[in-house]
């Protein structure tokens, strides 16, 4: 195997080469949440401390005293990611460390549901932390139960096919924008360059910064592990999960303009959790996605 095959060119890597996440972790094959962590740490570097509540990531990292990450992790109670990060930041400042970036890293259940109160409190006080919600659209760690981030139509173990979820996904970005925090961004594992760019930008801002990251979960979505990136990309391109940022709660900017917005049908069809949906129900999903996109276009002016 070698050079004789072809002249080697220099590889141009589009994201930082540093690898603060190591192999040997416990995530399922094709886990999007794992890639989200990898990209975030590439952007923030080693001078970072994480606060992780109960969620898949509390397991993925590995059992104490080992870890898959090169940064300290404070494992905290399910509802306390934002308040723990607030305390860690305050503690570090008391011992004179003003540089370390403190990140609360939680799932959608820990953010949209049980951790919302602590998150709202921290955001209202404008605590100097980055809060990242990796969204796999259900409580995956405990066996795929519905959360308020689970979208309309989805099967979960608590919303079985006969009683699939009929309520839409909670709009967490609008909730956070209403707190008028300095920076909010959505990101997707299919667009790591955009993710890294926005995370680096956030690092340089003071105050509460919130990231909503789309993280496909083959186990919970009943999708093929090799489709994780493809699904995330489709969700961006069909405006199911658009990439945008919000500054000071009101300045919206769309990061990826969609010239020809794709239909949601193909995206839904690749996932077992939506298999039962009829054409009429899929049209309802499309109408909801279109309405959300129109609203976003207006906000971004």
């Amino acid at each position, binding site marked *: 195997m070698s050079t004789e095959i*072809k002249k080697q060119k220099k590889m141009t890597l589009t994201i930082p080469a540093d690898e603060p996440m190591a192999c040997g972790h*416990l995530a399922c094959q094709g886990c999007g949440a794992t890639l989200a962590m990898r990209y975030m740490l590439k952007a923030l570097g080693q001078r970072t401390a994480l606060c992780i509540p109960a969620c898949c990531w509390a397991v993925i990292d590995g059992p104490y005293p080992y*870890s898959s990450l090169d940064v300290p992790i404070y494992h905290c109670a399910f509802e306390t990611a934002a308040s723990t990060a607030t305390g860690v930041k305050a503690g570090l400042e008391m011992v004179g460390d003003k540089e370390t970036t403190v990140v609360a890293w939680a799932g959608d259940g820990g953010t949209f549901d049980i951790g919302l109160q602590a998150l709202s409190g921290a955001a209202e006080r404008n605590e100097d932390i980055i809060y990242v919600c990796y969204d796999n659209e259900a409580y995956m760690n405990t066996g795929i139960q519905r959360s308020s981030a689970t979208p309309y139509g989805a099967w979960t173990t608590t919303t079985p096919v006969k009683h699939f979820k009929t309520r839409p996904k909670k709009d967490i970005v609008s909730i956070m924008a209403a707190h008028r925090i300095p920076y909010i961004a959505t990101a997707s594992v299919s667009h790591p360059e955009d993710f890294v760019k926005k995370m680096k930008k956030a690092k340089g801002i003071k105050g509460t910064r919130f990231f909503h990251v789309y993280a496909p979960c083959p186990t919970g979505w009943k999708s093929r592990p090799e489709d994780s990136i493809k699904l995330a990309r489709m969700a961006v391109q069909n405006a199911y999960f658009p990439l945008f940022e919000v500054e000071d709660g009101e300045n919206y900017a769309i990061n990826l303009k969609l010239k020809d917005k794709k239909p949601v049908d193909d995206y839904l069809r690749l996932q077992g959790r939506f298999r039962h949906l009829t054409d009429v129900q899929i049209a309802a999903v499309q109408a909801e996605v279109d309405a959300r996109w129109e609203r976003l276009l207006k906000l971004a002016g």
Partner: protein
Amino acid sequence: MRPKKAKKVVFKSAAEMPLLICSVGHQTHNLTGAWRNIRPEVDRSKCIQCGICWKFCPEPAIEIVDEWPVVDYDYCKGCGICAEECPSKCIVMVEERK
């Protein structure tokens, strides 16, 4: 790259435990390659050296060695993302035989 087979760290007493909450060793002793039932194989004659497989591997089990992607089979879980995302289709997933 980090050392492959990390030594198991054993604390003899509480006094040896670190004060700060942090890891005392990485998880690399856990060879997740054993989870795999299909393996990616890279055909260098078709590889355009774009680094996309490296970028999207969730382990990350693809290293860049001499400007080529090299799969570390001690850790690759066989998810198939690299083969799916490769723009020149030079990675194929083949069945593992024991």
